[in-house]
């Protein structure tokens, strides 16, 4: 029998005083071996930047990161790439980060995943990507832009990011 869960409420616009913390966006020091930078933007249904969003990325092997968006809706993380992860039932999942999105205007947080562009084979076999209609899968795969991985989060509309029920 389940107890009565406490409902969610929006993080609001003023979480800056409480949630972001120094070097929260660094899962690995920028100078460390294998460190990579992830950059992206959070965009709304009109393609406008969302300047009051907070992202958390989490993978048990690499740790936890938290970063807010700036006035351009931009965020960044520094991390090392996680390895493949076992899935329920013994299959393997391609390397990925779990990404949680909070923002003013989100009454509940959103959960998505960021996969890596250099894992074509593993991505093709990934049990979660395979649950997503093929045309929308690319919203979950970061793009290599020079030395940086680019991953945008589109909350609504054109090329809307795939979000998962939780």
């Amino acid at each position, binding site marked *: 029998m389940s107890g009565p869960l406490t*409902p969610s409420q929006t*993080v609001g616009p*003023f979480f800056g005083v409480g949630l972001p913390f120094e070097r929260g966006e660094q899962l690995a020091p920028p100078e460390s071996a294998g460190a990579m930078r992830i950059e992206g933007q959070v965009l709304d249904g009109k393609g406008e930047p969302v300047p009051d969003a907070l992202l958390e990325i989490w993978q048990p092997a690499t740790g936890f990161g938290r970063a807010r968006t700036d006035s351009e809706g931009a965020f960044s993380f520094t991390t090392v790439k996680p390895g493949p992860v076992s899935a*329920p039932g013994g299959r393997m999942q391609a390397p990925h980060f779990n990404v949680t999105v909070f923002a003013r*205007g989100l009454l509940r947080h959103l959960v998505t995943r960021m996969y890596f562009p250099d894992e074509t084979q593993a991505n093709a076999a990934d049990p979660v990507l395979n649950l997503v209609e093929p045309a929308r899968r690319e919203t979950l795969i970061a793009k290599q832009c020079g030395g940086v991985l680019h991953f945008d989060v589109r909350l609504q509309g054109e090329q*809307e990011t795939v979000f998962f029920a939780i």
Partner: protein
Amino acid sequence: MSEREPPYLYPDYVGTRLRAPAQPLVNLPDGFHDFPAPLFPRTIAQVDHDLTRQHAGEPIGERIIVTGRVLDSDGRPLRKTVVEVWQANAAGRYLDQDDQHPAPLDPNFTGAGRCLTDNDGHYRFITIKPGAYPWKNHRNAWRPAHIHFSLFGSEFRSRLVTQMYFPGDPLMPRDPILQSIPDQAGRDRLVSRFDPETTVPEWALAYRWDIVLRGRAATPFENEP
């Protein structure tokens, strides 16, 4: 279950209109979201639970104790779990450069706190009662007094960010953020109760508020939107 989470799209809360996903959320089979919650990398000092002792002087306002238990849906206490809070000051102003409310900042109040629950799942903060504040959602829109809470719980799927309200606040029925929760029982779960037993004579009123997070045996909600 009669309780429901708020929907993503709730047009009365204008901020949802361009931010709620239009596509249905994708369901994952059982087991994909029940890996352990993150280990919180931020240090938590003993003093972090007392928002009235972070500066040279004491903040202006009504000193209060806010306490309760963090439980999972089977009633098990969550031990040593992180609770983060943030709030406006007694005048209804946040220490945030984007807060344009013409009310005074308090040099002795930051408005952020953290603590770990004890072995019975208790958390405890000392703070001042936050003021109501206006927002531009609709004409004459005011948020009821509230404290923002953030918790991790035991698993990835336990994560919760929410707001705690105060009993009897006349702004609650007019607040689209609270009213986005579809049923009264659900809304009531966000309202603390005055706790005369925990109130410290000659010092501070106490409010009690328990938080229930999704645990291992929780029934998943139906998909929304």
